[in-house]
C-alpha cells in the first residue's frame, strides 16, 4: 500500500534523524535542534506549514504558519530564516490570532446620518470612484490624496503610487512611515546619496561592541536583541544602552548611560571630538572616501502651517570641522547632556579602538527627533571618521518598525517626493517611471505636495477634500491629534478607510472597506536589512474582505485607467511585482525574481547574478562598486560619503515652570503600533491591558503618587488622565514621564506636539513639556 510505504519511509527518516541527533549530542552536549522544539506540536495533526514574513515589526522574522482546515492555527519560527533562525517574539507566536477577532470588519460600511450602514463591495467601490471624480472636477486633482503605511505590501504601495502619481497626476501620496523613519531616509540620502543600511543583521555575529542609541531593543526588536544576548554568551561582546530612560534593555546591557532628551546631538559630536583629539581617525579611509559639508542651522521646527525648508549644503575642510568640534569637548558636553565626560570617553574609546568592531543600532529615539536627520548624520560621522562601515561587524544600522517600511515606503517610494526609482523633482526619473507606467511623462507633477503632517493640515484647511487611508490608524498616531481629528470630521471632507477592525480612524470614515489581512492574500514585505520576503495566500479572506491592492485596482478601473491597470485578478500580484522590478534594474538596486522569493526565506537587494548583497559599498561583496577601491559610496556622484557638521540645537518645547516635565511616548513588547491587531489577541491584551504613565520613583514618592493612582497630564494642547506606573516596566529620570501610545481609549497623542525635523518632516513624539498632577 502506498500509505504504508510512506509511513515506513517517514519512520525510517525519523530513525535516521534520531540517530544523527544522538550522535550530535555526544559530540556537543546541550546541542539544540529546531526539530526537537517542534516535538510538542499536535501529534498526527494534519498541519500544513507555510512560510511567511511576520505581520508585525520591521525585523521581518521568517515564520511558518500552521494551517488546519482552512484556518491558521499555529505559528513557529522558520529555522531556515537567517533573520530569526527559528525564534519569534510573543507577538509573532500569537500573530495568527489577530486574524480572528470577533469584531473583524467583513462588510463595507457607509456612513448615513452619522450611522454606519452595510452595503455591497461593488456599491462601496462605485461610491469611492464617483466621489474621487467629483472632488477632482470641483477642487482639482491635488484635492484627492492617499495615506498608507509601511504595512502596505509592495504591490499595495506600487498600485497606489501608480494610480495617484502616474494616472491621476498628484503627488498626494504619503505613508505612516513618515512618522516612523523619514529621518532615517534623509540621513542616508544626505550622508550616502542612496537609501537603506549598507550592512545587514549578520553584522551582529561579527561585531564586538553594540551601542544602542535611544533604542529599547529588548522590547521593540526582541528577536534581534536575543541575537545580541546570544553573542554575548558565546563571545563576550559588550552592549551599551545609551538612552533617556531605564528599560529592560538597560537591565540587560553591560552599561547603561542616561542622557538628557535632545542632547544626543552634543554627545555624538563629543565622540567625534574624542576620536579626532586622540588620533583615532582612519586617515586613509577619510581622505579617499569622505567629504566634509555643513548645512543651514536654526532651521525652526515646522510648527506653523505651510512651513518650508530647504537645506543649502556647503563644502568645508577637515580643519573647519575640527574647529567646529572645539565646542564639544566631553567636559563641555557633560554640562548639557548629563553624561559624564568619563562615559563619553568610554563610548568614544570603543569607536576609536581599531581592533574593536562596533555596531550602532537605533530606531525611533533618533528618528522621531526634531533634528532627526542631523543625529542620523552624526552617528554616520562617527563610523566614517573611524572607517568602521560597510564591513562585517562594523555597521551603523537603522532599524525600522513596520513590516515593509523599507520594502514599500522607501523602495516603492510612497512618499510625496518619491518615485519607485528616484524623485519627482528629477525629469529623467519622471520620464523613466512614466514609461513603465504607460502614462504621459507630463502626468507626474515635478513638485512634491504635502508631507504627512502638512497633508492633514491641508485637510483641515480644505485644500484636500478626499483622503483614502489604508492599513494605518492616524487617529491614534498623529501628534497634536485633536486638530487632525476635528479636520477629518469637518463638512465637505470625504474619508475612506480600509482596515480589518474598527479603530478610531474608521470612526471618522465616510466609507469603511474591509481589507484582507496578511496571509488572507498574497504579497511581499521588505525588512530593515533590504530583504524582500514573499507570502502566499494561505486562507480565505474574512467575509467580503478584499486585499488593499485589489481595492485600488478596482477603483482605478472605475476611474477609466483600465489600460494601466490591466492586471488579471488571479495573477495580479505576480504581474505587479514583475512590473515593479523593472524600475530597479541595474546593479545598485536589482530586486530578486519572484521564483527566488517563493523558494527562499527572502533575498537582499541588490540581487545580482543570482546573489543577495550583504554589505553594500564594499567591493568584496557589492557588485555595484566600480571605482577599483575597497569602498565605493556610489550613491553620491563623486563616489564619496559625507561627514556633516551638525550642531546641537535645543528642542522646540522644553520643560519650564508651568510645564516642568518632559513627556516621552513609545511602545511596549506586547503591542504592535496602535494595538488594533495585538489587542485582539487575548494573551497580549491580558499581559498589557491599558496605557499608563511611568514616573520617576523618587519623584512619585514626593508627589504621593502610587502605582494605579490617577494622574492628570496637561500640555499646551490639552489634558489626559492616566493610571500611574511606578517601578514597573521602565523607570524614567527625574522630571521625565513616559506613556505608551497603543491605547485608543487613552489617546496620549491628543497632547503631543506636532513639531518635526525640517529636513525629514518627521514629528518628534519623544519630547514636549507636560505638567503632572495627582487627581
Amino acid at each position, binding site marked *: 500500500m502506498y500509505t504504508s510505504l510512506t509511513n515506513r519511509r517517514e519512520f525510517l527518516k525519523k530513525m535516521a534523524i534520531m540517530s544523527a541527533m544522538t550522535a550530535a549530542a555526544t559530540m556537543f552536549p*546541550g*546541542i539544540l*535542534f529546531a526539530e526537537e522544539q517542534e516535538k510538542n506540536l499536535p501529534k498526527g495533526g494534519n498541519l500544513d506549514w507555510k512560510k511567511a514574513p511576520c505581520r508585525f515589526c520591521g525585523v521581518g522574522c521568517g515564520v511558518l504558519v500552521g494551517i488546519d482546515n482552512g484556518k491558521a492555527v499555529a505559528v513557529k519560527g522558520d529555522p531556515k530564516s537567517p533573520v530569526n533562525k527559528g525564534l519569534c517574539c510573543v507577538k509573532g507566536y500569537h500573530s495568527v490570532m489577530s486574524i480572528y477577532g470577533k469584531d473583524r470588519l467583513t462588510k463595507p460600511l457607509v456612513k448615513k446620518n452619522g450611522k454606519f450602514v452595510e452595503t455591497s463591495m461593488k456599491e462601496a467601490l462605485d461610491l469611492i470612484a464617483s466621489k474621487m471624480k467629483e472632488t477632482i472636477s470641483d477642487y482639482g486633482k491635488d484635492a484627492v490624496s492617499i495615506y498608507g503605511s509601511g504595512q502596505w505590501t509592495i504591490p499595495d504601495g506600487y498600485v497606489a503610487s501608480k494610480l495617484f502619481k502616474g494616472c491621476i497626476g498628484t503627488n498626494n501620496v504619503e505613508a505612516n512611515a513618515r512618522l516612523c523613519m523619514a529621518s532615517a531616509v534623509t540621513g542616508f540620502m544626505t550622508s550616502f546619496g542612496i537609501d537603506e543600511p549598507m550592512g545587514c543583521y549578520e553584522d551582529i555575529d561579527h561585531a564586538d561592541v553594540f551601542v544602542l542609541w535611544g533604542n529599547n531593543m529588548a522590547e521593540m526588536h526582541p528577536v534581534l536583541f536575543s541575537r545580541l544576548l546570544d553573542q554575548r554568551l558565546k563571545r563576550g561582546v559588550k552592549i551599551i544602552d545609551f538612552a533617556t530612560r531605564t528599560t529592560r534593555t538597560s537591565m540587560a546591557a553591560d552599561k547603561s548611560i542616561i542622557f538628557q532628551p535632545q542632547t544626543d546631538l552634543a554627545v555624538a559630536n563629543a565622540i567625534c571630538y574624542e576620536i579626532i583629539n586622540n588620533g583615532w581617525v582612519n586617515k586613509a579611509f577619510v581622505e579617499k572616501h569622505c567629504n566634509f559639508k555643513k548645512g543651514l542651522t536654526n532651521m525652526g521646527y515646522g510648527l506653523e502651517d505651510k512651513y518650508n525648508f530647504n537645506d543649502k549644503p556647503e563644502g568645508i575642510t577637515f580643519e573647519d570641522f575640527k574647529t567646529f568640534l572645539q565646542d564639544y569637548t566631553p567636559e563641555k558636553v557633560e554640562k548639557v547632556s548629563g553624561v559624564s565626560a568619563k562615559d563619553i570617553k568610554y563610548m568614544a574609546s570603543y569607536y576609536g579602538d581599531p581592533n574593536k568592531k562596533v555596531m550602532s543600532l537605533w530606531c525611533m529615539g533618533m528618528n522621531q527627533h526634531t533634528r532627526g536627520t542631523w543625529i542620523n548624520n552624526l552617528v554616520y560621522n562617527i563610523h566614517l571618521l573611524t572607517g568602521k562601515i560597510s564591513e562585517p561587524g562594523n555597521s551603523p544600522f537603522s532599524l525600522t518598525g513596520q513590516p515593509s517600511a523599507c520594502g514599500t515606503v522607501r523602495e516603492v517610494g510612497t512618499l510625496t517626493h518619491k518615485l519607485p526609482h528616484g524623485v519627482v523633482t528629477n525629469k529623467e526619473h519622471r520620464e523613466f517611471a512614466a514609461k513603465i507606467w504607460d502614462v504621459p511623462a507630463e502626468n507626474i507633477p515635478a513638485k512634491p505636495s504635502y508631507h504627512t503632517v502638512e497633508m492633514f493640515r491641508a485637510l483641515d484647511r480644505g485644500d484636500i477634500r478626499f483622503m483614502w487611508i489604508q492599513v494605518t490608524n492616524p487617529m491614534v498616531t498623529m501628534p497634536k491629534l485633536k486638530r487632525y481629528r476635528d479636520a477629518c470630521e469637518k463638512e465637505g471632507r470625504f474619508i475612506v478607510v480600509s482596515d480589518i477592525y474598527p479603530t478610531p480612524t474608521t470612526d471618522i470614515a465616510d466609507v469603511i472597506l474591509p481589507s484582507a489581512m496578511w496571509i488572507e492574500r498574497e504579497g511581499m514585505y521588505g525588512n530593515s536589512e533590504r530583504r524582500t520576503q514573499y507570502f502566499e495566500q494561505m486562507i480565505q479572506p474574512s467575509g467580503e474582505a478584499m486585499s488593499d491592492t485589489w481595492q485600488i485596482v478596482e477603483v482605478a478601473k472605475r476611474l477609466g485607467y483600465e489600460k494601466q491597470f490591466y492586471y488579471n485578478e488571479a495573477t495580479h500580484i505576480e504581474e505587479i511585482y514583475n512590473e515593479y522590478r523593472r524600475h530597479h534594474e541595474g546593479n545598485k538596486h536589482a530586486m530578486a525574481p519572484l521564483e527566488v522569493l517563493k523558494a527562499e526565506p527572502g533575498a537582499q537587494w541588490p540581487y545580482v547574478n543570482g546573489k543577495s548583497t550583504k554589505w553594500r559599498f564594499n567591493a568584496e561583496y557589492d557588485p555595484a562598486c566600480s571605482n577599483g577601491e575597497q569602498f565605493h559610496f556610489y550613491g553620491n556622484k563623486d563616489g564619496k560619503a559625507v561627514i556633516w557638521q551638525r550642531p546641537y540645537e535645543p528642542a522646540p518645547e522644553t520643560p519650564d515652570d508651568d510645564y516642568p516635565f518632559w513627556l516621552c511616548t513609545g511602545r511596549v513588547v506586547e503591542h504592535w503600533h496602535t494595538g488594533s491587531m495585538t489587542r485582539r489577541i487575548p494573551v497580549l491584551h491580558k499581559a498589557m491591558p491599558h496605557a499608563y504613565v511611568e514616573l520617576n520613583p523618587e519623584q512619585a514618592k514626593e508627589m504621593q503618587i502610587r502605582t494605579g493612582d490617577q494622574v492628570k497630564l496637561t500640555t499646551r494642547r490639552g489634558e489626559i488622565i492616566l493610571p500611574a506606573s511606578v517601578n514597573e516596566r521602565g523607570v524614567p529620570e527625574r522630571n521625565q514621564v513616559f506613556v505608551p501610545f497603543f491605547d485608543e481609549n487613552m489617546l496620549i497623542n491628543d497632547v503631543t506636539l506636532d513639531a518635526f525635523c525640517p529636513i525629514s518632516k518627521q514629528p518628534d513624539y519623544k519630547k514636549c513639556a507636560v505638567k503632572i498632577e495627582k487627581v
Partner: protein
Amino acid sequence: MPIKSYLAHPHEGKKSELVQALTSISSCEVIPAENNDLLIVITETTNNTEDNILKEKIEAIESLKLLAMVSGFDTPIK
C-alpha cells in the same frame, strides 16, 4: 530506496551558506543545530546510483568541511 543521515560540519562562518546550498537540493532535508556549527542532513533517493551521485554533489559544496554518515536504511524492493 536508501535513506541516510549525516552530520555536516561547515567551514567557520559558512553555516548559512551550507544550509542554503543543501536546501536547494531536492532530495536533501536539513536540520541545522540552533547553538552549534553543525547540521543534520537526511537524504532520500530512489536507488543506489542516485544516492552515489547525490553524495558526490553534497561533497562538492564549498562551504562543507566534513560530512560524516551516521546511519543508513534501505527499503527492500517488493
